[in-house]
């Protein structure tokens, strides 16, 4: 089992992800500089959090054009498991591999705290060790995590069961007070139609050791390990409905 953690200029949670999968989970792991044109045999790819290209234009907007994203798009199209965390989520949206876009947090404040999320779907490679409805405590750290999608896209995400994580209150209900950034429908994480590309704003890699306050993030990272080992959820077993990915395939609103 081999992980790849992609490093863009400005990624600053790359070492957190590397530490979690390499040292805590104990798997072979490579950093991949964004100029690379190969995943070097990785079984799963993590796009980590941070501020790729300083978020100078828009979060994830410039990173989307990095050479490695061509490779990630191809890997995703073939059914390979890809996890986007925070800025990695934003990059996947800009690349057209996931729907929607992130707006500035409704409060305009950078939010850095532990939040509660509910696992909505256990049928993805990153949640198959969870139960649907299970509550996880994970940290967030973002200023632009306010998930937005046009109404028709939002309806499609809900209808297809592509909402994977939702922010909830202490009782597990998706209420406004459980929503740290104003995300539509309390959405904290989604997947693509084929379910192999998953992204969330909270940081599971920072919740893998009890010293850090929560080990709930291990469920997400261990899930993909279970997926790879059993062969479940891969392109061969699920087939994939993923439309041709690639840098020039960003869907245009009509």
């Amino acid at each position, binding site marked *: 089992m081999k992980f790849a953690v992609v490093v863009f200029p400005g990624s600053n949670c790359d070492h957190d992800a590397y530490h979690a999968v390499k040292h805590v989970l104990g798997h072979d792991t490579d950093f991949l500089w964004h100029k690379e044109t190969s995943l070097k045999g990785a079984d799963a790819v993590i796009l980590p959090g941070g501020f790729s290209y300083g978020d100078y234009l*828009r979060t994830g907007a410039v990173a989307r054009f990095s050479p490695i994203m061509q490779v990630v798009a191809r890997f995703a199209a073939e059914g390979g498991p890809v996890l986007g965390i925070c800025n990695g989520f934003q990059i996947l949206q800009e690349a057209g591999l996931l729907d929607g876009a992130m*707006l500035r947090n409704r409060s*305009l404040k950078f939010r850095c705290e532990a939040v509660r999320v509910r696992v909505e779907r256990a049928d993805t490679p990153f949640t198959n060790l969870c139960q649907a409805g299970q509550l996880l405590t994970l940290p967030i750290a973002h200023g632009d995590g306010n998930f937005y999608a046009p109404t028709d896209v939002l309806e499609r995400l809900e209808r297809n069961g592509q909402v994977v994580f939702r922010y909830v209150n202490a009782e597990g209900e998706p209420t406004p007070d459980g929503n740290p950034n104003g995300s539509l429908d309390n959405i904290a994480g989604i997947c693509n139609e084929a379910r192999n590309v998953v992204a969330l704003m909270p940081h599971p890699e920072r919740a893998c050791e009890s010293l850090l306050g929560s080990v709930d993030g291990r469920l997400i990272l261990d899930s993909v390990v279970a997926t790879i080992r059993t062969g479940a959820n891969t392109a061969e077993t699920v087939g994939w409905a993923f439309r041709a990915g690639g840098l020039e395939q960003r869907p245009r609103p009509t």
Partner: protein
Amino acid sequence: MSDAAAAAPTVRAKVFVTLKPSVFDPQGTTIAEALHSMGYGGVEDVRQGKYFELTVRAESTGEAQRQVEEIADRLLANPVIESYRVEVQP
């Protein structure tokens, strides 16, 4: 850059990027509230956006317009949340 492009005249382009009307703009809302507290009660709405100035070598203003619109669509704006307007001056 090709020789032809290097020899082409310079065209100045302005790109205005704004959040779509359907998208909530928390920065614009905060600015509007500040203006109200400053006494500008007549300000009904503020939308914050981005403004870019590009200097482009192109054979014609039409070609510059085409290029800059493509640039705005691919990079400067995210069509999921933003709309853009391009103004080209010879």
